[in-house]
């Protein structure tokens, strides 16, 4: 981590890297993997050799808790000012489950150069919602996109893995294996071991 005490003044911005594995712009378009990059900075910025689109105050991210031990956490990413004709991109793409990484970029105000980019949040989008804000006088509406994200720790907490000794569990990993099909049967069977 950079030693910030050597700088007279610094500024920070947040950078969101959202990887949507099934993204499309209309209901008929084909899915493709797309990475959406945006920041609350006022200018286009390069982080980790990737360019981030400046959204300025249209992007708001809730704070995270910082703890020494790993803990479950959630953040909400709010993008406002989305034009109504762009809503299709949100609705027809499969945003749920997308990987999201948020970096905090630290800059030297005097020189405008990047000092460091730290990982602020690493997780997945577990839900999203679109809210409309309608201006009655001007008869125009804009949309807010809310991405609810949980970090990897909470995803792992919810994860159940492993196989059980029954046919369906075995087939979920190895479709053609019938070795455990008889477990329910033998469970209730009495064997006359040694009977004449």
């Amino acid at each position, binding site marked *: 981590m950079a030693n910030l005490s050597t700088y007279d003044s610094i500024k920070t911005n947040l950078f969101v890297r959202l990887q949507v594995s099934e993204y499309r712009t209309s209901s008929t378009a084909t899915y493709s993997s797309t990475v959406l990059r945006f920041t609350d900075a006022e200018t286009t910025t390069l982080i980790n050799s990737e360019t981030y689109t400046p959204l300025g105050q249209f992007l708001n991210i809730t704070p995270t808790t910082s703890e020494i031990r790993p803990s479950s956490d959630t953040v909400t990413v709010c993008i406002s000012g989305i034009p109504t004709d762009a809503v299709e991109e949100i609705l027809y793409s499969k945003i749920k489950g997308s990987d999201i990484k948020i970096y905090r970029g630290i800059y030297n105000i005097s020189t405008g150069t990047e000092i460091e980019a730290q990982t602020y949040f690493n997780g997945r989008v577990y839900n999203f919602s679109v809210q409309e804000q309608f201006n009655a006088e001007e008869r125009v509406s804009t949309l807010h996109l809310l991405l609810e994200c949980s970090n990897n720790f909470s995803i792992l907490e919810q994860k159940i893995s492993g196989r059980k*000794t029954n046919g369906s569990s075995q087939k979920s*990993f*190895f479709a053609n294996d019938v*070795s455990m099909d008889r*477990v329910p049967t*033998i469970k209730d069977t009495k064997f006359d071991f*040694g009977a004449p």
Partner: protein
Amino acid sequence: MSFLDSIKSVGKQALGFLGGDGIGSTLARTALLGYALNRVNKSMNKANEGLQDKGSNITIAADTEYKVPVLYGSAFVPGKIIDAQLSSDNKTMSIAVVLCERTGSLIDGTQSVISFNEIYIDGFRLGFRSDGYTVENIYDTEGNSSNVWDGLVKVYPYNNGSSNPTQFTSEATGNSTAASSIFPGWTANHTMDDLVFVVIQLTYNKKQKLTTVGQNIMVKLTNTMTKPGDCLNDYMQNTRYGAGIPATEVDVS
């Protein structure tokens, strides 16, 4: 004539009748002989019923919700029966016992291997004949041995599915037959993929007190994956029993 003389007289008449050559006497003798044989038969049957071995009526402790464990390092692993077949003469019981998952590769790319060290049935350690899978002796916790199960139990270990037989580390040789050729009714579709398991065949013998399949089957296993980094990396990445974290997100350097 006293009453004693009267009794004697009746007895003589009866014996004289049975000892006579008349049809009545012959019929009476036949009837008496039949009755006597019948009583003897009944008596023998009763004796046989007491001695006849009716076998054991056993149930298998199978469990559809049992989670197959993951083993790193060395441990005594309890087994869970997933299949059982009784031979047509009811004398030989075959059971397939799942032990644990086959683990993945070490960080250096070497495939981990699980080996069989010892097997215990109801607290008795099994010792084998020279073929490496037929039980010769059993040992109690104090090391005392007995050959009461000699030839009555066979143990076939597998450390990576049905087509990968292995042997106990204490034996010079051992099982070399696929499980589908050992277990009655199993085919090439009984693959037991990525499982460490054992097939046990037990021959009923009441005299030697081998009348059940054992309530507690325990196997001492050793995995070549022992280092914390290897274990953690395997558990984080494995998609079957672990967290399923992509390799790109785990820095192993």
